[in-house]
């Protein structure tokens, strides 16, 4: 009997593919964001609103992740510059997106013609928090009907978020969602995210969110140029 010291991160393979993905994105000056939320919080609606607002200023690509169906890809295909659907039902590795799936999707996307890549993860607040994809920013959407306790119940997904969107803000008169308590719970875990209160139905707050994205695209492109890319 012999003991071999290993100390190797089991997620290392995913993390190294994610780093490769990010290098490829940077090479083409594509700014990528990973959009995560529970099912029904409004990921697709936010993507549609974002494209409507920014399509005259940015070329936007979309990767749609779903367990099954191409419903979401159908919804965005007429609006975006390019769309790829990833269906995870038949994939053994994971039900949510992992770096390897993005690696394949990037090969089919015209990266030269994309400035902003919106990656819609599978609706789930647990699995996506474990897997980086190569994205530049991680965004979590919570919607008012879900309740304000999600940062307490699913801390991991909020702990790494760069932006937190509170969607369906038009429903505030009808639901008991304590916005200050929600913000406080997120900030206690993670002081860094930007908050956006939006309604994808009325368009409220979309402007501020889009201007954050636009700044992200510009500053990432500048950073890549400065690093000699």
């Amino acid at each position, binding site marked *: *009997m012999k003991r*071999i010291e290993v*100390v190797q991160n089991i*997620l290392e393979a995913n993390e190294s593919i994610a780093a490769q993905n990010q290098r490829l994105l940077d090479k083409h000056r594509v700014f990528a964001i990973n959009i995560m939320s529970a099912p029904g919080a409004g990921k697709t609606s936010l993507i549609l609103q974002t494209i409507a607002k920014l399509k005259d200023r940015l070329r936007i690509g979309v990767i749609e992740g779903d367990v099954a169906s191409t419903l979401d890809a159908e919804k965005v295909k007429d609006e975006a510059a390019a769309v790829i659907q990833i269906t995870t039902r038949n994939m053994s590795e994971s039900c949510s997106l992992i770096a390897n799936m993005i690696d394949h999707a990037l090969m089919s996307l015209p990266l030269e013609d994309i400035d902003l890549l919106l990656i819609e993860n599978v609706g789930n607040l647990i699995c996506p928090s*474990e897997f980086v994809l190569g994205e530049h920013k991680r965004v979590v959407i919570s919607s008012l009907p879900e309740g304000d306790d999600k940062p307490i119940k699913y*801390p991991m997904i909020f702990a790494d978020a760069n932006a937190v969107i509170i969607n369906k803000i038009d429903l505030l008169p009808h639901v008991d969602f304590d916005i200050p308590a929600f913000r406080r719970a997120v900030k206690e875990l993670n002081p860094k995210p930007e908050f956006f209160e939006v309604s994808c139905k009325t368009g409220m707050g979309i402007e501020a969110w889009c201007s954050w994205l636009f700044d992200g695209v510009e500053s990432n492109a500048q950073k890549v140029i400065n690093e000699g890319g």
Partner: protein
Amino acid sequence: MHELGITENIMDIALDKAKEAQASKISRINLVVGELSGFVSDCIEFYFEFLSKDTIAQGAKLYFEPVPLQLRCRSCSMVFHPQDTLWSCPECQSQSVEIVGGRELYIESLEVE
């Protein structure tokens, strides 16, 4: 449902390291799994039994060493294990905390023959 991919990674790493050491059998894999890592050890064991068939890892025992969730208070720097879901510092009651332990997921060592 992401344990299958994780188990494949565990198998790959273990078989690689065992080959490097010219081992003929893996008898035990020692894993370190944080409380927050979100992986179900029963699922990993189930997939492992299936994936390890006809490899030198067949019949190996998986040992999961749990790492409790540890938080550091951003106000007074106290490191603590929270007693409830509210994650407040037992020293100063601040709820502004940083996760410092409990996200681990790695292979610590192998026992081979």
